[in-house]
């Protein structure tokens, strides 16, 4: 409809104004309205970010404003038990870091290895078959990975290390499965960076007598390093924000432990448990999920910004 109006309008205006030389000066109200509407569409994203910061900040302030909570204790205490008024976030952060580290132990080396293989070794045909298969892994919803962690990885770990050692819920199982989930992200981002390295650099390396591995290791990978690091950082950010795997497999109950076989609740797992239960609004419990959500948002925001900066850097050099 909009389009018809516009066409009619344009036709009508032409009849009224035969002076074609002045066509460009005509005020086009329809065009301006559309321009404004499209700008608003773009601005919705700004509103989203402002909304996140405002709402999370507001509720987080309420949380820190309540008498039981002190900011210093929040950041340094190692007990999180809202029922007895202990709000130390370290157990949750610690569990998040542990699952993230386990995930990275899998995702970074394997993802980079896969990227190097696809970009430097595989023939075009092998690459065309393998890449989509790996990308299936990225398309599987995280709740399915949570199921996989609980029903496959945990029994496997209990089989290897002994059921007495390994608890049913543990951070190792959740972290390893998270690594599998993030692997395709690392490999596809790193591969993009590797493929952006100009062929002439490789040719130069071969001309100097380097083997394929030497050229890859000493020329291609260093040249693509900023892109690879960007991929690693995005992977860490993804692991920190990942929710369903840890909610299902890492355990529900904050615990300050460095034992990978023990259950420990992560920041995201805590948010899911508290908001999945019956919430009483405006209690410290309820407000605490906003404080933790804000912490999560800020950590991932910084990581994403750093990663984008690094990607921009290699694009600048080679594209």
């Amino acid at each position, binding site marked *: 409809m909009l389009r018809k109006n516009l066409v009619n309008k344009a036709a009508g205006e032409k009849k009224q104004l035969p002076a074609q030389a002045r066509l460009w000066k005509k005020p086009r109200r329809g065009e301006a309205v559309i321009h404004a509407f499209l700008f608003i569409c773009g601005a919705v994203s700004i509103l989203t970010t402002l909304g996140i910061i405002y709402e999370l900040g507001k509720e987080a302030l309420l949380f820190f404003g309540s008498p039981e909570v002190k900011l210093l204790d929040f950041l340094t205490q190692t007990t999180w038990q809202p029922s007895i008024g202990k709000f130390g976030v370290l157990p949750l952060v610690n569990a998040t870091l542990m699952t993230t580290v386990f995930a990275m132990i899998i995702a970074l080396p394997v993802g980079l290895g896969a990227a190097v293989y696809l970009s430097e070794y595989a023939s075009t045909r092998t690459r065309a078959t393998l890449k989509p298969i790996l990308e299936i892994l990225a398309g599987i919803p995280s709740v399915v990975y949570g199921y996989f962690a609980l029903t496959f990885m945990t029994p496997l770990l209990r089989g290897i290390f002994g059921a007495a050692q390994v608890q049913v819920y543990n951070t190792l199982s959740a972290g390893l499965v998270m690594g599998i989930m993030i692997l*395709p992200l690392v490999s596809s981002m790193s591969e993009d960076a590797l493929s952006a390295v100009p062929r002439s650099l490789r040719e130069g390396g071969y001309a100097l007598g380097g083997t394929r591995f030497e050229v890859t290791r000493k020329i291609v990978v260093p040249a693509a390093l900023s892109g690879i690091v960007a991929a690693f950082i995005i992977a860490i950010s993804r692991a920190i924000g990942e929710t369903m795997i840890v909610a299902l497999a890492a355990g529900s109950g904050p615990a300050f432990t460095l034992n990978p076989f023990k259950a420990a609740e992560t920041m995201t797992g805590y948010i899911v448990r508290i908001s999945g239960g019956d919430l009483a609004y405006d209690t410290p419990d309820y407000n605490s999920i906003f404080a933790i959500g804000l912490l999560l948002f800020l950590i991932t925001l910084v990581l994403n910004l750093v990663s984008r900066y690094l990607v921009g850097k290699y694009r600048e050099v080679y594209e």
Partner: protein
Amino acid sequence: MNRAPHKSAQAASPHLLARHRAGRLWKTGFSLSILFGLIALAALLFNVIDQSAGLLVTANKVDPSTLAEKPLEELSVKELTQILKSNLSNNRIKTIERNGVLMGRTQAELLELIDEQIVKPEVIASYHLFESLRHETEIRQQALGKNPDARIEWKIWLNWHFLTNVMSSNAQYAGVRTALLGSLFLIAVSILMAFPIGVGAAIYLEEYSDRRLRINRIIQTNIDNLAGVPSIVYGILGLAIFVRALSPLTSGVIFGVEGGNGRTILSAALTMALLILPVIIINAQEAIRAVPSSLRQAAYGLGATRWQTIWHHVLPYAMPGILTGSILAVSRAIGETAPLIVVGAATFITQDPNGVFSRFTALPIQIYNWTTRPQPEFRNIAAAAILVLLLSLLSMNAVAILLRNKFSRR
């Protein structure tokens, strides 16, 4: 390119053999990385399929042969109704008749009802598919040895009943009907909101915005960052804004809907729309950027205005790409669980969603809920629900690929 070591090169470098050996070793390592990914994918799929079928051992609470003199299958509708009425309380019958009177049902439906309400088979053990295939006779002997009345049957958990039944606290009768409808509703509403805004924003950024202006650069950076915000943060945002602050709107109270709270399909769909918006924008931007600028110049040359050019030339050309990207965004939304839990998806609902203001559940919520149950039979139905989810994702991606292939031939 032939990089086999030349004789003179061998002479030049005494370590050449060692260097090549190292190269081969690393190459093996790199291909093992790929292999690892493939094995992980295979293990995941195997695990789900393995748990979605197998031998099921049940024991009846009431022996069906005591209910009537003849086998139940030979009884008429009237006689079956009689059995139900004499074995169940009046209240129970009333609850059941809410979905249609007993006399009006078919024999098969009544038999199922008797099974579910009176015979009440309880799960004693549930075996995985491959375990069942390998050790069927031992499993049968063992089960009968423990309980001579046990009923042992092959059960494929993903079946027609599973798709059409509503939720139940008994895994054998539970289905995903409400969850599936909830997911469809949710996706439909969120795409209706996110698609126009997302495409609008992409058009603005690609066709209108002047990159020298700071505000436009901020919008672009912001969208890229929003795509990386963890989905649970969107859930918290949705909880604060749509569920609580806008509760009169999202619960439908101002539209005259009785006694609702903000935990409705509308709240969840709005949250989901915000979540997929950056993905839709980024994909649409790429599609629009791929439109050759000669097309635009030709339209301008003929005197078209900017919007006429976009509407008649740029958008039709970019549409397949935009649609493909949007389908991929939607397939991400279908599997999202965390934000839905936070905005308050219900886990147990037996009524179909009947509008944007109804309470809801969704497929991934059911998978999550069933996985957290300790009983093995709930793991089985969780696996069946995962298969439903993966199959719907697969079909959406297939549509996206077909779409791309169809239009890229032009």
